[in-house]
């Protein structure tokens, strides 16, 4: 998957609809302290399915909805849409991951599920090479959440599964948040192992 475009509305300090277009190579985000750079970072993590509020510098998930200023009323919902371009690798990798988890499932439950019965779901996603996958996540003040994959409602789990094992999932080695670099060397040896296991 390649990053194509990011749309943020109502997420943290991004009260208004904001769009960032990515391209190949290195994209740099700059600006003074507190202007919102790390909020963009967290918007992407949140869109990828991050559920740990602490990793978004929050006590509870609702904190990520734009809370308003003296001149701007609070938002009633936070919405982030991430547009990704699927590359040839992703598809075969997806199928491979899929088969692996089926195999593990069969070993564990002594069952005999075949891919054939699962494949239709992925075919519904219709992710073919060169096509854009859009992930949308919404959180309302009421606490309700919505998740969309290519515009169709899905579960949070479907989004998280898309990225497991890629370093963008639960154990992240491709995403380094502010301050994390300083902690890596003082982390426990077992924590480092977890990073390598994720990649393996």
């Amino acid at each position, binding site marked *: *998957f*390649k*990053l194509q475009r990011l749309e943020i509305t109502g997420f*943290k*300090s*991004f*009260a*208004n609809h*904001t*769009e*960032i277009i*990515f*391209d*190949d*190579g*290195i*994209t*740099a*985000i*700059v*600006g*003074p302290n507190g*202007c*919102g*750079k*790390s*909020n*963009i*970072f967290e918007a*992407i993590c949140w869109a990828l399915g991050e559920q740990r509020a602490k990793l978004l510098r929050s006590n509870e998930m609702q904190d990520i909805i734009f809370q308003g*200023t*003296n*001149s*701007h009323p609070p938002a009633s919902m936070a919405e982030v849409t991430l547009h*990704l371009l699927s590359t040839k690798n*992703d598809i075969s990798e997806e199928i491979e991951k899929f088969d692996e988890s089926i195999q593990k499932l069969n070993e564990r439950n002594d069952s005999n599920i075949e891919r054939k019965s699962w494949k239709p779901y992925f075919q519904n996603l219709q992710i073919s090479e060169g096509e854009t996958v859009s992930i949308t996540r919404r959180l309302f003040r009421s606490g309700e959440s919505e998740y969309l994959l290519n515009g169709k409602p899905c579960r949070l789990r479907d989004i998280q599964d898309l990225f497991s*094992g*890629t*370093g*963008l999932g639960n154990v992240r*080695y*491709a*995403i*380094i*948040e*502010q301050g*994390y*670099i*300083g902690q*890596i*060397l*003082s982390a426990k*040896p*077992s924590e*480092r*192992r977890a*990073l*390598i296991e994720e*990649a*393996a």
Partner: protein
Amino acid sequence: SKERFIKAFEIINSNFTKLFSDLFGGGTGELRLIETDEILESGIEIIAQPPGKRLQNVLLLSGGEKAMTAIALMLAIFEFQPSPFCILDEVDAPLDDSNISRFIEKLRQMASEIQFLIITHNKKTMEAADRLYGVTMQEKGVSKIVSVDLKRI
């Protein structure tokens, strides 16, 4: 699964050694498994020796040296199993000019295959980027993005 871990570990270890020496402009870096009798349980130890310095406890390294070592580790894992893109938030904060030069040189090499999104305050890092987005708060408390023109040298 145990073989997969060992195989991954060996490749990541050799990536780490190469990256360490590229980023530091010399020196020796290595990963080791602690308590190698129980491979499935053993944690991972980092051995880091910047150029010209003697091998010591990694705790004694300076703030900038620790950051470079950590970057080498993350990029080593990343090289082994590339994720489609990589996002870095101010990892260059503790680095001096010469370390930043080597760091962004390495990013530029990897950028031909991987997309990088890097948040930074550092001018040298900005100059190495292909495009720049500036984030401002013209209206206090409300973020806004402006595309910043990049004059490539």
